[in-house]
């Protein structure tokens, strides 16, 4: 088992070996498709398809449980916002609120569709990030002809996120040890506690940034000058075909949606 910064993944999985550009395109692909497609059937079938890819990539599905709470909160927020605040005409009106909005069968279906969009983004992104190393991000961004400075900044952010999280837990524990109940009190009181928590984190970050400047100078980082790269990723003919597919499908989906109404809400079998 190797560890990427999101999950543990078998190195011999075909997705792990993908060219970094393809990993970035795949990430964009899932998010674009989720944005274009409205039909709940297509969305949820796509999610099933991504879960099959999890299996093929040898990523334990249990890893998705990490995001269960996050997914539950977002799902709840989507459902409530549509139930309480939308006016989507439908065949059956279940309830009318005094403020003028109402709940119909289509309200629930649309909310279900929106949850599907969010879920496709979540599981799709998780799939890609599970097989992505920081080096992939750097090389992927560079393959897109985006300046190295941006690629390096992204990579550095991932590296320092781990240090930041470590600091966060230490400061949090220190506050608890001095009698702070972080999760008690009203919203304002909690906000004040978290402001207190953020002070040492910011001070530590500033101090580290200063030292990091020296370190990067010492390592000869030159964002404008010419540099070479240790890894060589070759995009073979299969890779090129896959890249073209990943670019073509969202364009085609958008075209079919705009021209023929395919993938629009509510879609099959809810059209009638």
């Amino acid at each position: 088992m190797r560890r990427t910064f999101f999950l543990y993944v078998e190195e011999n999985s075909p997705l792990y070996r993908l060219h970094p550009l393809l990993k970035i395109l795949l990430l964009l692909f899932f998010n674009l498709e989720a944005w274009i497609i409205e039909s709940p059937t297509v969305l949820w079938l796509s999610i099933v398809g991504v879960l099959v890819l999890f299996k093929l990539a040898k990523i334990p599905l249990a890893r998705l449980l990490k995001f269960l709470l996050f997914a539950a909160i977002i799902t709840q927020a989507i459902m409530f916002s549509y139930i309480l605040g939308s006016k989507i005409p439908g065949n059956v009106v279940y309830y009318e609120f005094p403020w003028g909005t109402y709940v119909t069968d289509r309200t629930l279906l649309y909310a279900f569709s929106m949850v599907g969009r969010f879920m496709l983004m979540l599981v799709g992104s998780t799939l890609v990030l599970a097989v992505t190393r920081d080096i992939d991000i750097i090389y992927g961004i560079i393959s897109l002809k985006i300046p190295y400075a941006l690629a390096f900044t992204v990579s550095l952010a991932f590296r320092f996120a781990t240090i930041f999280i470590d600091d966060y837990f230490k400061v949090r524990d220190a506050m608890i040890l001095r009698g702070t109940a972080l999760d008690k009190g009203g919203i304002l009181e909690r906000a004040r506690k978290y402001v207190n928590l953020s002070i040492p984190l910011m001070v530590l970050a500033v101090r580290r940034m200063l030292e990091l400047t020296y370190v990067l100078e010492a390592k000869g980082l030159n964002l404008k000058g010419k540099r070479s790269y240790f890894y060589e990723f070759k995009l073979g003919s299969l890779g090129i075909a896959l890249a073209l597919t990943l670019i073509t499908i969202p364009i085609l989906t958008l075209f079919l949606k705009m021209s023929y109404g395919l993938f629009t809400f509510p879609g099959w079998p809810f059209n009638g």
Partner: protein
Amino acid sequence: MDSRCVLKVEGLWWKYQGSKEWVLKDVNLEVSEGEFLGIVGPSGAGKTTLCLALTGIIPHAVRGKIRGRVFVFGKDTSKNPLHRIMEDIGIVFQDPDIQFVTMRVIDEVVFPLENLGLPREAMAKRAYWALKVVGMMGFEDKYPFELSGGQKQRVAIASMLAKLPKILILDEPTSDLDPVGKREIFQVLQTLREEHDMTLVVVEHNVEELAKYADRVLLLNQGRVLAQEDPRSLFSKCEYLIRTGVYPPQVTEFFYRLNKYRGLSVANKLPLTPEEAYEAMSKLKVSVTPPIVEDASKNCKSTPIISFENVEYVYPDGTVALRGVDLKVFRGEFIAIIGANGSGKTTLVKHMVGILKPTKGRVTVLGKDTREASVSELALKVGYVYQNPDHQLFCTTVYDECAYALRNLGLPPQEIEERVEKVLERLGLKEFAGTPPYFLSKGQRQRLAVATVLAMKPEVIIVDEPTTGQDHVQSRSIMDLLKSLNDEGKTIVVITHDMRLVAEYAKRVLVMSKGKIIADGSVRSVLARLEDLDVSALTPPQITRLFLKINPNVSILSVEEALRTVRWVA
């Protein structure tokens, strides 16, 4: 300029932008090719600033005012681009984490080479060579969180080494490391000298290692070079060094004081290592009287205030950090916990404050099971001071910092005021009551961290690595404070790697290895158990080692005790 001179500093003055004080004052220095130059000095002496100036980072990447010049291989650093200067120089900093800017060992080592624009084959060749030199082959795919501090620091050295610099500068490379890590780094430096004839400039508080390896040592204080001599000559000026805030090697100080106060001419050259000291001692007609030892068990008759019963702790990722720990802490003890990084020291003390609850077994604090008590409830009885004070200072003034926990406890304002004033006075921080904590020096912040805990009047005070990155004066100041609290009846538990301070201050020592307590006893008895210490890659202080070699039954803890022990035979 001498043809063998690779680094030259001429009348260098430097002050940071916005600062009134010059940090470096008229520094003059020459370093020859292949030389090992050690730099010592108290905190704030300007050592790091000098390192930055030697590499050209000052003035290129740091704003301030400069006078004088620095030459690297004859090139004036202020007139040449930084990346040109950096081709000849590598620098390793103190914090092993901040230097790891990528996510894998191999990426870290090739990163400077990519910046140089080297071809792929050349990068691979140099990177694997550098990893081999520092003994990190086989770790190429490891992530920073999979490495110990010593290993990360070796990667930092490899990363610089791969550039094939002619000069390597190391700024306190071992201060965050456990004894194993320290030893690893000096072994690597030895290899670089012996096999690669590299010029080394090393800033270090650990003078005993410097004395062993350096050709010359430069003493810096308040930005001025006070001396630059060979180690034996410099470290023989014991009183002068101590006045400056630098403690000489223990055996050197011992012989210096034998000479001076006993009026004996015991050695022409003062020894620097226990081996040299043993040789010098064997030529003397002296006898060694074992010191009168206090009964260490007399404190242990009361009921324990903290008790561990067969405690096991497993982290969520499956790491077993404690394995069947049994321990009793008694009121009024001064305990030092020692052991390599990852041996379970911090996990152990986090159980004492209830931040961690045992996976198996039971921990009780003043009779209460920690699983049934909240952390804030336990914090009233057991205070915990973090290694880095910046992790526990979050208020806008020193006063508020001390009052924070008391307000959370809901104490009346008058009592809060009384307690805070008392504790600030006790720790010499009263004049800073209205100052933001981050404006204090590191030593003062460390004291403030202790003050915040002390204000809660806990019975036990746990201090995690209080002396890391501090000079000996600051370290002793903190340890003196803990000793005085212990004299007042507080129970003190300290985690530290500094064996000299352990010997001089602790009454009881716990040695941890792989989640177990492998030795537990009076400081004198534990420091004499060389085999147990060796398992944890720990080494007793120089003076203890010297006397154990003379007589395995005589365990000496300090230079003062050693002087009392030696009897002159007519």
